[in-house]
């Protein structure tokens, strides 16, 4: 196999894995034409979160935070073990964010610094590339103490979150607006053509209903910033930021596969540096860095004299003009200790604040099946899969609702969408067990099993029509899905503005029956600030966030 063939293989692999990743995000969706055999319990046809389970960073961090490698996260070994022998092949051949960064970096720039000699210089190993190791150590130390923050920067979570909650919804809005605009001219052939194209892309890219997510600008701007940085430094994210890249770099310490430089054939043309992706100094005359190399093999392909060659057990000759290639990572002990100390200190720092428990946001309604907040924050990687799959658009990324610690973790906003009582899709897609998988029975409950509760509804008597405005309504009671209904009615006499006595049915809530699904809040006609609303109290996952002394025939709810 020639090196050109291998380069084409690498490109094919990048495209293929990118498409697979993208396809899995698209399939994290309740599709219209999906007809399962058993309609009583709807199970997604594909393991849509499997791509996320291949992240060794997530596997390691959740292991440290929780003491176990959860379910599918064992797949991470499929990436990690070959890395030990081969180096960071994942970054150069598989990672969808790496691929995206690669593509954007390689679009020709008009800036001189990004061409010729300027680019050769920028592709040399730089000290900023150490930052990713410190980030990795910081996150790992934080995970060890119990707060999982790796999801913010894990490339797979980052991609899933950005695609699922920002890119795809934006495409949806864009497509709808474009279609409406083209149709607004009233020219039949134009409208038909626009509709035809729309109908062609809709089943591929668009969900049944347009999703509207909370705080997508923060996620979107972060995503955009990462992509734009590629125009300044080639694969800036992969070289300087990515904690997964750092972890794989560390694990390639004993790699038996690497670059062999033949000094005698080199004419110092520097073409290898011009095309280098990892900034790992492939040129003769400087120290090659295994931990930075993403195995794109561009250097070998670019070399006109065959002086560079990737092989097993490379002979890394040391001469005066060609210093020893390093397998050690270029980090200082002091900064490693500092990063670790920072990570360890993060936990008491954030937990001494009030956002966790003591002054928790009452509107922090977590998805059904979520584990207690303490454990939730040690598991959730903010991949956004639960938000993407929710058919009602009920789940959203938080901004500050869960404190800065829980930024972009899921919260239910019932005004936008409520939790469909018989739906368990979000519990099926969570890759880390922040949301435990629920069966239909565990979700809705039966004679022996209590239902899963996410909160409790309350009536705002100052805004409710029958309570404050002497008018009939009770849409909340109609929508209440429990049987018997949580919202019960009492006929009472109210006085209207003319002084007449009118009989209205006023809603009351039985906290023992309420599951906090939020259907009442969603359906309330007082749309801007619903007169019935859900707060997290009564949620199954917490033994303390409770109202009632007794529930479901037991003390507490455990």
């Amino acid at each position, binding site marked *: 196999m020639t090196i050109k063939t291998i380069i084409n293989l690498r490109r094919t692999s990048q495209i293929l894995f990118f498409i697979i990743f993208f396809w899995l995000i698209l399939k994290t969706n*309740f*599709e*219209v034409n*999906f*007809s*399962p055999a058993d*309609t*009583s319990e*709807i199970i997604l046809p594909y393991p849509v979160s499997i791509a996320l389970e291949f992240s060794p960073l997530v596997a390691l961090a959740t292991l440290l935070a929780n003491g176990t490698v959860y379910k599918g996260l064992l797949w991470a070994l499929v990436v990690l073990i070959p890395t030990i022998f081969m180096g960071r092949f994942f970054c150069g051949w598989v990672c969808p964010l790496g691929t995206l960064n690669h593509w954007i970096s390689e679009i020709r720039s008009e800036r001189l610094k990004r061409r010729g000699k300027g680019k050769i210089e920028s592709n040399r190993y730089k000290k900023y590339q150490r930052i990713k190791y410190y980030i990795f150590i910081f996150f790992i130390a934080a995970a060890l103490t119990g707060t999982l923050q790796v999801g913010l920067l894990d490339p797979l979570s980052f991609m899933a979150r950005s695609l699922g909650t920002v890119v795809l919804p934006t495409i949806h809005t864009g497509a709808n607006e474009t279609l409406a605009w083209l149709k607004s001219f009233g020219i039949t052939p134009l409208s038909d053509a626009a509709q035809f194209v729309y109908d062609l892309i809709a089943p591929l890219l668009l969900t*049944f*209903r347009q999703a509207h997510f909370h705080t997508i600008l923060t996620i979107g701007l972060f995503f955009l910033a990462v992509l734009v940085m590629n125009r300044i430094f080639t694969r800036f994210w992969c070289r300087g930021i990515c904690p997964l890249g750092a972890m794989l770099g560390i694990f390639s310490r004993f790699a038996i596969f690497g670059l062999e430089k033949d000094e005698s054939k080199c004419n110092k043309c520097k073409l290898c540096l011009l095309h280098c992706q990892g900034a790992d100094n492939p040129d003769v005359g400087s120290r090659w860095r295994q931990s930075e190399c993403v195995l794109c093999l561009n250097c070998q392909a670019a070399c006109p004299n065959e002086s560079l060659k990737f092989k097993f057990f490379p002979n890394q000759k040391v001469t005066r003009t060609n210093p020893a290639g390093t397998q050690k990572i270029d980090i200082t002990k002091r900064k490693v200790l500092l990063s670790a100390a920072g990570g360890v200190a993060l936990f008491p720092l954030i937990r001494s604040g009030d956002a966790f428990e003591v002054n928790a946001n009452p509107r922090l309604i977590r998805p059904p099946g979520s584990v207690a907040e303490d454990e939730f924050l040690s598991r959730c990687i903010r991949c956004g899969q639960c938000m993407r799959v929710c*058919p*009602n658009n009920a789940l959203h990324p938080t901004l500050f609702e869960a404190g800065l610690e829980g930024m972009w973790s899921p919260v239910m906003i019932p005004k936008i969408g409520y939790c*469909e*009582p*018989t*739906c368990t899709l979000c519990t099926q897609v969570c890759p880390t067990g922040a949301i435990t998988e629920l069966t239909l029975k565990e979700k809705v409950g039966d004679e022996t099993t209590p239902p899963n509760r996410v909160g409790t509804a309350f009536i705002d008597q100052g805004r409710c*029509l029958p309570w404050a405005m002497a*008018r*009939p*309504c*009770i*849409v909340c*009671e*109609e*929508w*209440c*899905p*429990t*049987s*018997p*209904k949580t919202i019960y*009615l009492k006929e009472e006499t109210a006085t209207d503005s003319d002084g007449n006595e009118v009989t209205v*049915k006023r809603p009351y809530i039985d906290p023992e029956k309420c599951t906090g699904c939020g259907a009442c809040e969603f*359906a*309330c*006609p007082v*749309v801007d600030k619903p007169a019935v609303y859900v707060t997290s109290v009564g949620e199954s996952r917490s033994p303390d966030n409770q109202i009632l002394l007794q529930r479901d025939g037991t003390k507490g709810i455990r």
Partner: protein
Amino acid sequence: MERRDFLKKTGRAVALAVVTGGTGLLFHNRETAGYIPPIVKSGSFEVPPDPALPGITLATNEDHIKALHAVLDAIGGIKRFISPGERVTIKPNVGWDRSPQQAADTNPILVSETVRLCLAAGASEVIVTDITCNDPRRCFLRSGIRQAAENAGAKVILPVDEDYVRVDLKGEILTVWPVLKYFINTDKLINMPIVKQHSLSSCTIGMKNLYGILGGRRNQLHQSIDQSIVDLATFCRPTLTIVDATRVLFRNGPQGGSLDDVKIRNSVICSTDLVAADTLGAGFLDLTPERVRHIMLAEKQGLGKTDYKAIGFKEIV
């Protein structure tokens, strides 16, 4: 400066100034938004009455298909209502994400058999659709209606935003509302409600089922529920109403959720008179028409008769 040079340079600036000022003046408007007139369209799909035939029929049979055949045959057969080449829209109640046993949505067996009969009568196309309360994907899936109707040859439509048209309903309460286009752009409309208890309107049967043709802020309609139901029944005149009383949701309506809320009755009602159909249907909930305000109001406005025996009633046992 040469005169030519002066003219050229000043001319360019003047031209841009004219274009800029002209654009401003051209688009100047004191109104904030233009008025879009609603569509005026009839919602009536009735067939001429036949005094020789009963106006309402009721059959009870454990075999629900036989019950449906019996009520239809007694009222004149499906061919009295559907002519070859016509487009038929069927409106079952698919309001909630519930299974058929829970009796919150119309029995899928009745829907599929009605589809089959319409196609056999020569209908060019049969559309089954409804504007659901819960997510339409789940409602159509779990109610079994999507699969049943598609297997029978119907086109099942899950409404999306683009499917609505603004229609002037000319009612007392209901004026201009978004209506799902399939319920007005059709030749015949078959209303297929299920009998359920409802806390505000006492019951939801044939007339209340028509709420499902409306989009928009439906949750405001409760503030004047009886008049809005009657307004809707005045605008929308289905060809035929087939009431599913095979399973009756007698409490905890309109969604139920427990089999304890359901009574098995194995009955089907068929009528060309919505008020009569609702009166007879309400009987399954032990309600007399006097206790259901929208039925009384509808009769008062001349939409039909609560005395269903007066329009010719036939019961098949």
